[in-house]
């Protein structure tokens, strides 16, 4: 991703990360579209997400992805299973940095 992209003012991002590990920046080109997105929310959570991705240590916490709880939660497509997965732990255990 070129650094210039990040500096285009008014650009609206979303969390679409492709297999090459680059974040696709979706730009809403029409002016009304930009106004609508700003009206929905001024927050830009993708900025924090990019920091987390950059600081994440590969492999740490990956065991969570192997648990039955995670697999059942992510793989089942119906409404029968538990649709909510809560990862709890004390501060600093790495909850934010789970891949």
């Amino acid at each position, binding site marked *: 991703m070129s650094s210039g992209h990040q500096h285009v003012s008014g650009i609206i991002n979303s*969390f679409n990360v492709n*297999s090459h590990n680059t974040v696709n920046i979706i730009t809403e080109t029409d002016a009304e579209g930009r106004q609508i997105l700003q009206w929905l929310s001024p927050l830009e959570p993708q900025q924090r997400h990019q920091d987390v991705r950059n600081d994440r240590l590969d492999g740490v916490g990956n065991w969570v992805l192997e648990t039955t709880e995670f697999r059942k939660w*992510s793989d089942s497509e119906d409404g029968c299973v538990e*649709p909510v*997965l809560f990862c709890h732990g004390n501060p600093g255990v790495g*909850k*934010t940095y789970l891949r």
Partner: protein
Amino acid sequence: MIDTLCDRSEGKDIAVVGLYCDFLAQQEQSTAGILGAILKQLASRDRIPEHIRGAFQRAKREFGGRGLRLPDLVEILKKTISSLQRVFICIDGLDESTPKHRRGLLESLREILHVSPSTRVFLTGRPHIDDEIVKCLSNAARIDVIPTQDDIKSYLVMRLDGDTEPSAVNDELRADIMRVILAEISEM
């Protein structure tokens, strides 16, 4: 988590959206603030859905562009999510929002799940909010995140390698640090 879900969703009509709660941003991250951020991510995936555009145009005519009220926001969100094949909503650090905002958020998520049962919600937080989650969303699976010895080892190596004063740590001290910390942790 967002990256794992995004990678797995590649090529499918699956949306992955999320937010990191921040103790310092409690004011912006109200129930409506969090849901608004989620709706914005869903709306910006592709062309903005007509029902959102319509709501904006109506709001613009009234009082010079009023913001969405929480009940309206939840309705729009429900409609948007039910038009998608599947949505993953990830909210990190739920304990960093205020109890009132958290309650509102969990109740809204419950409503969304009721309408779109294929939706999946991923939450992280400290253990003390467990009761609130179970009370509001009775059907929640839970994982206790405890770093493994390998996780801690990798983390220690990273921190030692990144030491800004590498001359202060010789090999012997480095080995001691690794040994003592890992031993202490295994006794916890």
